[in-house]
């Protein structure tokens, strides 16, 4: 299964991935319409410190703690992709308490949102990858170590 991987030496900290993500999942036809004048709730976040930046999104763990910990059954796996049923999520944030990577966030509805590898929007392949100007985010098949 292809996943998103991040190479921190090439991350510029430009945050474009966040905007491309928010736009891709807005369902709207223009980025301006989707994002102008609103807070955004992307599923990928640029983290870092003074010397390094990197984008973090769901690792789609093979044995995901968040799925096991979800108290509402909203988090589940679909062909290896960890997905969330927003309809079931009550926003208890237990998943945020257990995810070691900080990959889940609460959105404007109070429920949790997360990367689903753009399988649920019209992008086809992850928008963060397509929009990264420095190939710091890639979408590849890699073996489990």
């Amino acid at each position, binding site marked *: 299964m292809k996943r998103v991987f991040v190479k921190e*030496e*090439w*991350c*510029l*900290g*430009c*945050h*474009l991935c*966040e*905007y*491309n993500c928010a*736009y891709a999942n807005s369902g709207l036809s223009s*980025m*301006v319409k989707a*994002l*102008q*004048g609103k807070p955004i709730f992307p599923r990928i976040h640029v983290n870092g410190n003074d010397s390094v930046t990197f984008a973090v999104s769901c690792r789609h763990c093979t044995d995901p703690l968040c799925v096991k910990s979800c108290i509402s059954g909203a988090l589940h796996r679909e062909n290896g992709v960890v997905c969330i049923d927003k309809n079931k999520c009550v926003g208890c944030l237990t998943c945020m308490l257990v995810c070691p990577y900080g990959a889940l966030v609460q959105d404007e509805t109070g429920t949790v949102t997360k990367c689903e590898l753009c399988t649920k929007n019209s992008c086809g392949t992850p928008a963060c990858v397509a*929009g990264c*100007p*420095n*190939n*710091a985010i890639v979408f590849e098949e890699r073996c489990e170590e």
Partner: protein
Amino acid sequence: MNNMYISPDYEVIRNMSRCITCRVCERQCANEVHSFDPDGNVMISDESKCVNCKRCVSLCPTHALKIVKNEDTLRENANWQDATIKEIYKQANSGGVLLSSMGNPKPLPVYWDKILINASQVTNPPIDPLREPMETRVFLGKKPDHIERDENGKIKTDLAPQLELSVPIMFSAMSYGSISYNAHKSLATAAKELGIYYNTGEGGLHEDFYVYGENTIVQVASGRFGVHEDYLNAGAAIEIKMGQGAKPGIGGHLPGAKIVGDVSKTRMIPEGSDAISPAPHHDIYSIEDLRQLVFSLKEASQYKKPVIVKVAAVHNIAAIASGIARSGADIIAIDGFRGGTGAAPTRIRDNVGIPIELALASVDQRLREEGIRNNVSLVVGGSIRSAADVVKAIALGADACYIATAAVLALGCHLCRTCQTGKCNWGIATQRPELVKRLNPEIGSQRLVNLITAWKHEIKELMGGMGINSIEALRGNRLMLRGVGLTGKELEILGISHAGE
């Protein structure tokens, strides 16, 4: 009027109906043009800092930005143009020499654009490069004048050392220091993949890049920065830099701000010290002296590597080249006055040297006349902009071309001509780690490979059109060229007829 306000050259135009205040422009501008105003929740800009490098324009996800020429002008004056007056103000403010980068931007004649290429019709039909083999490989180095045989009548094949190029293009000298580690890595890996060469420039060779030695030309310049025995033996050829097209008559300048970390180590000079190469090589005041250095370098590299002597195209270039051809050098590289640089005094960049097209034609002519053309290969640079320029240069007599500006353009350069500040937003002409990382060598080398591959296709198309299937057969074949809009004198120097003749 102590420090006169000079209105900025550019204006930042932000289309507010598109701006989503993502602040990418702000994060990407090392010149700190853009900032976010939390009170108005809008992006604002300080255009006085803008160098028009287009980084923000390129990365703005909603294409909300454009940088335009500032319309604030002085009263129109064909003689005293805006730029000229502003330069006076700047010097009156600072008392300093004006510095600039990259090539001469003045509207001086570009002879390439006044030379047209022939194509076959009816007789000697054109060749289709998609269907028939087409040879673009060239060998650079001393060639024998005649066939020699041994006592058994067998042909002697021990040639002087040669450089083999899959296509007659090389990346010309840009030092590690003037450009970044990642830019060098992009050039090195691309050269290897393409079967051509890149040139270290005068900054030495970073230890990580010794592995690309087979595709590296190491340079020895007047400052001798980074030169040692291993270095001389690391590359496939050694280049003595006598001059540079962008600044003939002076040595290289690398501001201390760029001499950091590995750059200082590789150059073998202290961090932060300005690297000012002397104008002359202090051991070279004659062709005989040059010959000594050529042979010192050959000696140091066991006569296994060709030695290149690089000079700027200046007034007496033909005579200079004739001397070099007799110095023992294997290759002469001539750099025209439009060649780029990482830093040069503006006056020198814009006023010293001559066009490469004229220099090349006169050198090739002179060497032929003197019967020493085979002593050396000729490599020309100084604003080779396209495959057509390459083909024209070969037909004028060059063996191969050096490109550097075109290469950095492929790496993302937008020719803002402020390399000397060390704040290159594209990660090329900078040593600031956060900027250097903007050039991912994986992307960089791929773009260079793409560029040269594209040019190679075009060269083959042009060759095919002329009915030529080997680039060697095009060299010096000036019948394939015609001038347009040139004076008799210019045509005479170029050795070509006028279109229609």
